[in-house]
């Protein structure tokens, strides 16, 4: 693949990451990591660098959602408390768990919640 095609695919992918994040309110990171790997980063660097792409688009999207009236102080506060506490637990537990087991459990969880979202 020549550089020109590669670069344009990279930019198209970037736009898609932004669109998915904005439209669905999340999930852009799941696309951004493979995109950065396609751009030549290893898995760990791709995960870390994806945050740098996702953070500004989350701020922009959040501002537009709030402007459109989708906001609830109590719910947001409760969610932030939960996410931060859970985040600390998850980050600490990561080292102590088997990577394969975790990713299989996570995959099953995604499929189950996906099915529930479609049929509910």
């Amino acid at each position, binding site marked *: 693949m020549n550089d020109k095609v590669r670069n344009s695919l990279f930019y198209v992918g970037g736009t898609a990451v932004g669109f998915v994040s904005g439209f669905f309110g999340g999930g852009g990171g799941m696309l951004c990591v493979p995109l950065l790997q396609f751009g030549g980063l290893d898995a760990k660097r791709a995960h*870390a660098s994806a945050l740098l792409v996702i953070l500004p*688009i989350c701020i*922009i999207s959040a501002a537009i959602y709030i402007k*459109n009236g989708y906001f609830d102080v109590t719910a947001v506060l409760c969610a932030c408390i*939960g996410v931060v506490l859970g985040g600390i637990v998850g980050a600490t537990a990561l080292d102590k768990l088997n990577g394969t087991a975790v990713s299989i459990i996570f995959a099953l969880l995604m499929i189950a919640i996906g099915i529930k979202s479609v049929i509910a």
Partner: protein
Amino acid sequence: MTPQHVIIIVSALGGVIGGMGMGGGTLLIPLLTLAAGLEQHLAQAINLIAFVPMSVVALVIHKNNGYVSIAKSAPIVGCAAIGAVCGSFLARYAGGYELRASFGAFLIALGLIQMYKAISAVVKKKKASKNKSAQIKVG
């Protein structure tokens, strides 16, 4: 249990998964709508907002560890921002069920890919160790 408690609990669950670096935000939206009964657009807004403090902390840690490549991510930030503005404005015109169901389909696809990757990694590992023991026997 009040609705607030439910929100804290499901967000914590999303946070645990997110803290493991597996896109907890992705699951936070359906958890908020299905388990806590929030409206789809509001759940999406909450996920976007809750992601900000979490990722700032993670980003600082990763940056200090030298894992953040600005050279690779900077070029796509601009495109991503344009995509995000369009997506966020359009989301307003999409119905809650349509958003949830198509995101659900997206989750199923990602789950299947992840499953395939995890299982093929295990198979590869097993094959490698089998070859190794065969070599030892021959040796």
